[in-house]
């Protein structure tokens, strides 16, 4: 029988496209022939805005790139500018930064896990993940007064020392964290329906992953051992003992399990950092008016979505001449078409979920 393909517009207003992503699907029945992501519905021109702002004013915008891992974004930008200026960050600040970035990674992966299973239909798993993430947000709220756009990590350190009782609260969270992981494992990982939904779906080979310059969990699920924290340790990451979880098959399931493993490793890093954290100042001597010397620099960090890079060109003025962000979510999202082909309409949503795009970062 001769069949006709048809186009289906998924988004930009669709409950499971992670924001305002639009995917133009070409379908044959329910089989996907082509899935074309259309981005730009959340484009705010952050890179261009940054050219007209002074360095301290640029920093809040970094929080708004990948708003689920704000601390990591801010950490990357601060380290870029510090590298160009040659600023030495105090020890305690370095530890606080690592703690914040890793907690933020856990929170981001909780959203990833929750939204992935929520899109597969297990809404309770979604709510559990969100509920547990709330504990981390409470910690951030204590430290900097905001729950989402923190603006806590600054050039030269962090803006304020941790408040009284914060370390204890964080330890308490880490104690409960194992229980949370246990719940996720029992409710979601062990669930045969979820396994059937994700295993063997959208297999990404290591070669293709590298060729498409995927990074983060997407790359590691395909078995490529690349983590910026290990490959080019920035900050003080070489002082911690942690593993890089790797996948074997590169399917949706591996992409989920790698993220779950990363959550545990992040908790491990936070534990070590809390133990090793010294007393002392949290802010280096940084001039009020930040004017990096003329030059250019590229610095990248391992964000929850992948390899987040900042390319900064300075002309010696108090405003960046050019700031370009290599957004891992944007790069990973281009795999969507390739991964979706030949799978069913119902697979598109989990595949999109395992690529974990945050539209704030994709569109920038």
């Amino acid at each position, binding site marked *: 029988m001769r069949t006709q393909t048809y186009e289906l517009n998924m988004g930009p207003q669709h409950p499971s496209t992670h924001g305002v992503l639009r995917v133009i699907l070409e379908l044959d029945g329910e089989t996907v022939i082509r899935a074309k992501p259309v981005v730009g519905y959340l484009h705010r021109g952050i890179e261009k805005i940054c050219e007209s702002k002074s360095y301290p004013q640029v*920093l*809040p915008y970094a929080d708004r790139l990948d708003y689920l891992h704000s601390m990591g974004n801010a950490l990357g930008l601060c380290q870029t500018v510090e590298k160009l200026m040659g600023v030495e960050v105090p020890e305690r600040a370095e530890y606080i930064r690592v703690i914040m970035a890793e907690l933020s990674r856990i929170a981001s992966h909780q959203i990833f896990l929750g939204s992935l299973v929520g899109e597969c239909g297990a809404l*309770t798993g979604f709510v559990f993940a969100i509920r547990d993430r709330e504990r981390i947000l409470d910690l951030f*709220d*204590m430290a*900097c007064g905001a729950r989402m756009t923190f603006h806590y990590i600054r050039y030269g350190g962090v803006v304020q020392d941790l408040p009284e009782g914060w370390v204890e609260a964080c330890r308490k969270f880490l104690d409960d964290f194992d229980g949370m992981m246990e719940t996720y494992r*029992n409710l979601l990982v062990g*669930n*045969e329906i979820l396994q059937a939904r994700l295993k063997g779906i959208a297999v990404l080979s290591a070669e293709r992953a590298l060729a498409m310059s995927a990074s983060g969990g997407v790359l590691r699920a395909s078995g490529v051992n690349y983590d910026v924290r290990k490959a080019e340790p920035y900050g003080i990451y070489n002082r911690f003992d942690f593993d890089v979880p790797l996948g074997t098959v590169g399917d949706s399931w591996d992409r989920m399990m790698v993220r779950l493993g990363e959550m545990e490793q992040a908790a491990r890093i936070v534990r070590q950092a809390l133990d090793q954290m010294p007393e002392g100042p949290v802010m280096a001597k940084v001039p009020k008016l930040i004017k990096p010397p003329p030059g250019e620099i590229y610095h990248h960090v391992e964000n929850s979505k992948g390899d987040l890079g900042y390319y900064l060109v300075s002309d010696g003025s108090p405003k960046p001449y050019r700031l370009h962000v290599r957004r891992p979510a944007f790069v990973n999202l281009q795999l969507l078409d390739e991964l979706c082909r030949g799978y069913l309409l119902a697979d598109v949503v989990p595949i999109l979920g395992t690529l974990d795009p945050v539209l704030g970062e994709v569109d920038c």
Partner: protein
Amino acid sequence: MYGKGLLTGLGITLREFFRKKATERYPEVRPKLTERFRGGKLALEPEKCIACGLCSLNCPNGSIRLVTVKDEAGKRKLSEYEYDAGACMYCNLCIENCPQKCIRWDKKFDFAGYDRKHLIIDCIAVANAKKAAEREGGAETHE
């Protein structure tokens, strides 16, 4: 065995059914705000302000507009101070850069309105109204 995961899942949700709930009845139970909470509107203490304009200068979005006048002694004085909450990023840069520490967050975060204009706040008027109310009855106003 196939189906074991399904049954453990059912066990977890059933256990959750009888547990204490995580949510609060919001308008009756107010959330506990932390000491460093950044939210609500900017509260200005006009008499402390030296009208240096650093807050406005440091704001990434230009959400603070202030007008200064010179008084008889040639001293700069604040005449207007407008804060646009709609444009505010809550980055805290204005407060950190204030040499007199005369602005702070009022932490009253529930000020949704029906019009954009409700988000533009005349901070001097608010401060004066608050002072007047304190003089009247000493009671805290809740605008």
